[in-house]
Structures are given as C-alpha cells and as structure tokens.
C-alpha cells in the first residue's frame, strides 16, 4: 500500500542555519501520527515543505505517492493543512470563504453539500453569514479546519491546532480529529500538549534542532524508556540518605520524595532498604510509568547533536 507521507533525506537550510538535517520517515495510511519537538525544532518547516509553502534544499517528500515538487497538483489535492496561526481574509463570510477555498481545488456547486456538512459538524451553522474578522479565536480555528477539509484530502496536517484554545474547544477538536481518523483519514498532528499526543497518536516522531531524534509507535517509545518514577511518602529526616540514592532524587518536598529509577540498574528493593536503613519510615509508595513528556524531555535534553 502507498505510504500516506514519505519523507526522504530532507535537508533545509536558511542561510547559515540548518533547519532540517537528513529527515527520513514515512507515515502509513490511516495513521494518527504525532510530530513533536520543542520550539524551533523544525516541525513547521517540515510541514511547510510537505505543503509546498517552502522548498527543501535537498531530498523529497511524497503525499499519497505524489512528489510535492514534480507532481504538486495531486500532492496538494491530497493534503489539507490547518495552519498554526489564526489567519483569515477579512473580506468574506464563513460560507463565502469555504466555497472559494473549495473552488481553488477545482470544486463547484457539487461540493456545497460537503461544505454544509462541515459547517454543521464544526458547529459553525450560526456563523455562516458572519464576516471572519468578527469571529472569536475558537470559531476562527474551526473555520481553518473546515478550510483544510473542504477538498476532502486523504492526509490532514494539524499544526498546533489547539494553541491558545480553551479546554472545551480542545476536546471538541480532538473528538473531531478522531472521527476523521476513524473515517479513514491520515492525520499528522503537531502539538505541545503531550498528554494528548500520547493518547491520540499511534506513532510519534520527535524532532530536535532539525534532527529526527526518535521515531516509534507511542507504546514502544514508552516501553523502551529505561526509567520509571518512584514516589515515596515518609516520616523522618533525609539528611543521612547515602549519595548513591540522593543522585536518584528528582523532586523532594516536605514528606515526599520522587526518585527516577533505571528499570534494570536500580532495584526498588535495594533503594527502599537503603532509605529504611537511614531511619526513614516509609508511609506510602507508588511507582509511576513514564509518560510521553518524560520520553520527550529525555530525547530533547540529552540528544544535542
């Protein structure tokens, strides 16, 4: 089966700055894929190259098997991009803008029922005759999503769609993207909300300083993470804890300790015995499995290439 997205040896330079270095990965069809990384990691640059807003210095990208440079019409037809910024054309109403956008992709009146469906699904029915500049930020975000979907693309790119959006709308948007995914769309999501990336995405790529530092199924990324956290509630003083144990402490508050243990090298039993031998009485303990945020931090803080 054709890959939804193929990214091959992508390099991008802006003068002296190498924004992307030898990026290689592919996204299967009907996958919910997460692209995460700190600010300036190169996520938006990569999305811009996918969508034709930017040209790679070397390498190529294919969308549904269509090269974004040599077969750009079909590639763009297959791709819907929800941009990060709240951009809009202040001359038009919601319905006018959606119909125009549909027209840019070669659709005419036959696409109007789909536009109406999008309007209804995204809860924009009351706003169809409103000028775009009169809408709230959340409503503008919904219109951007509708604009990206107006030509029924197979691959949907959501570039930080929930930035600056309230909790309620975030939930609505995530629910909507899950619905699109269930209906067969391939989704590429970039977000700073790692909990959501963890729960939504089947596979995750982590970019840092233009490098691809991790790429795996979300579950595998978490399983291969070599650490877990141990939360302890105690009574007593921690002055006498040996240095070997102190080095494991990542958080210490009154009566509570959090230790980061290596799954193989650090034995919970040995750690507890060492603490107990210092006269500290452990009241409660809890082990916490790693979250995507821990994996993300580990990759982006330790992989300085």
């Amino acid at each position, binding site marked *: 089966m054709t890959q939804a997205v193929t990214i091959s040896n992508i390099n991008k330079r*802006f003068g002296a700055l190498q924004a992307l270095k030898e990026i290689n990965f592919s996204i299967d069809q009907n996958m919910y894929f997460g692209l995460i990384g700190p600010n300036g990691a190169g996520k938006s640059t990569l999305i*811009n190259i996918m*969508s*034709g*807003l*930017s*040209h790679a210095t070397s390498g190529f990208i294919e969308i549904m098997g269509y090269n974004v440079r040599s077969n*750009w*019409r*079909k590639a*763009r*037809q297959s*791709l819907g*991009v929800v*941009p990060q*910024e709240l*951009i*809009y*054309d*202040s*001359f*038009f109403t919601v319905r*006018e803008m959606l119909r*125009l*956008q*549909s*027209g*840019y*992709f*070669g*659709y*005419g009146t036959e696409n109007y029922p789909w536009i109406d469906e999008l309007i209804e699904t995204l809860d924009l029915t009351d706003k169809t005759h409103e000028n775009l500049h009169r809408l709230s930020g959340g409503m503008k975000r919904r219109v951007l999503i509708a*604009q990206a979907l107006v030509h029924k693309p197979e691959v949907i790119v959501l570039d930080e769609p929930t930035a600056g959006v309230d909790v309620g709308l975030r939930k609505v948007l995530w629910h909507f993207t899950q619905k699109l995914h269930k209906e067969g769309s391939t989704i590429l999501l970039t977000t700073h909300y790692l909990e959501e990336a963890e729960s939504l995405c089947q596979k995750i790529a982590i970019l840092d300083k233009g490098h691809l530092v991790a790429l795996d199924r979300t579950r595998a990324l978490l399983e291969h993470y070599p650490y877990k956290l141990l939360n302890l509630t105690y009574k007593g003083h921690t002055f006498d804890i040996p240095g070997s144990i102190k080095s494991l402490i990542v958080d210490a508050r009154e009566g509570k300790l959090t230790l980061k243990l290596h799954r193989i090298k650090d034995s919970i039993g040995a750690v507890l015995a060492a603490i107990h031998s210092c006269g500290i009485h452990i009241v409660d303990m809890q082990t916490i499995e790693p979250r995507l945020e821990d994996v993300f931090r580990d990759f982006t803080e330790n992989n300085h290439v």
Partner: protein
Amino acid sequence: MYNPRGIISLFLKETWRFLKVSIQTILAPVVTSLLYLLVFASVMKEHPAIYSGIEYTEFLIPGLIMMAILQNAFANSSSSLFQSKQNGSITFILLAPLSSYEFFLAYVGSSIVRGLCVGIGVWMVSCFFALLPVNNIFVIFWFAFIGSGVLGALGLIASIWAMKWDHVAAFQNFVILPLSFLSGVFFSIKSLSPFWTKVSFFNPFFYLIDGFRFGFLGVSETFLLLSFVISALFFLLVSCFCIIMLETGYNLRT
C-alpha cells in the same frame, strides 16, 4: 493538466473583494478624475488646441480615463496581494493546486475588470464636460485591456517584491505615478523640450495613452501600429517577469 475552476474561483474572489468596497475602489477614483476634469477643463479652457478641431477638454478626457484605469489596475493587484501576504491569508492560495500562470491570470484578470469599471465610470462622468467621439471601440478596448493588464502585472510584481506597505507606496509614487503623469495625459509630449520628448518615447505608458486616445479621437502622436506593438511587448515582458517571480516563489515561498 490545469485548474480552470481554480482560476475562476480566485478571479471571483479578487473581483468580489474590490466590489465589496466599491466606494473606495470604484467611486473614489471616479470622483478624483471628476475633480481633475473640473480643475483642468476650466483652467485650461483657453489652452490652444493640440489637434485642430479638438478642444483641450476632449484631448484631456481619454488621458484621464486611461490614467484612472492604469492606477486602479495597479492598486487592485498590489493592495490585495500585499494585504494577503501581510495577514498570512495568501497561505490558502499557495496551498491550492494553482500554478503560477493560473495565479497570474486570476489576479491580473481581476485588475483588468477593476480598471475597466473605473474607466467606464470616468467616461460616464466626463459626458457632463464633453461628449467624446468614438473613432474605434476595439482600439479603445484593446488599450484599456492591455493597459490594465500591464498595471495589474506590475501591481503583482510590486507586492511580491515589497516587504512592507512603504515599499508598495514607493513603487506607486516613484514608478507608476511619474510614468503615468509624464505620458501625455495632460499635454502633448511634443510640447516638451526636445530632450524630454525623446525621453517620453521610452515611456511605455505613453503608447498606452496615445493609442487609447486614438480610439476616441482618431488622432495620435505616434503610429497606432507602433503603440499596438510596444504595448503588447511591454505586457508580454512584464507578464513573463511576474510569472518567473511567482514560479521561483520569490518572497512568497521560502
């Protein structure tokens, strides 16, 4: 493969955009031309006729119509594209399967429509001052079409090149305005000193206005065929330059 519906949609969007603010985009330039007419027609009433049997007002009106066409065609594409660049909404067009020449056709097509709307408006109000003869309607239409096409393309070039509104204004004030004012709108270029007369022959706007005036009055300062050829070549040159800018993604795609 091409995208005719895409071109039509972008053309409609651009045309719809200026029609939504028609007071500013059509009525205001018509009123400005009316003021020019009021002032010049009364002040220059006694000006000796440039062509025998043709009053100065009759000489002036075709020039004013063409100047309004040129300036508004330029304003249409330059302001629309630059505004889209500034607020980021150009992204929606750049993401669409539209080629450089399709993009060009839609924007320039809309500039031509605005130029013609303003031109017809100025022609209508000028009837209160003088009823112009129509020597050849096809010649009038050809030069109005080519003129607004040239300026529509120049508007695209200016707005692609510009990084701020100041740059667009500079292009308009230091290139478009001098070229249109020094092209024989208000006077015969032969009334200038020999040096400036020669310089005026290098001004492509002169041929647009001279040919357009011929369409009404049946007289011109140079050969009509020469005006035809130079206008067409200038349009071709400006269009190619503009399409190359779009094709390379200069200042639009990074």
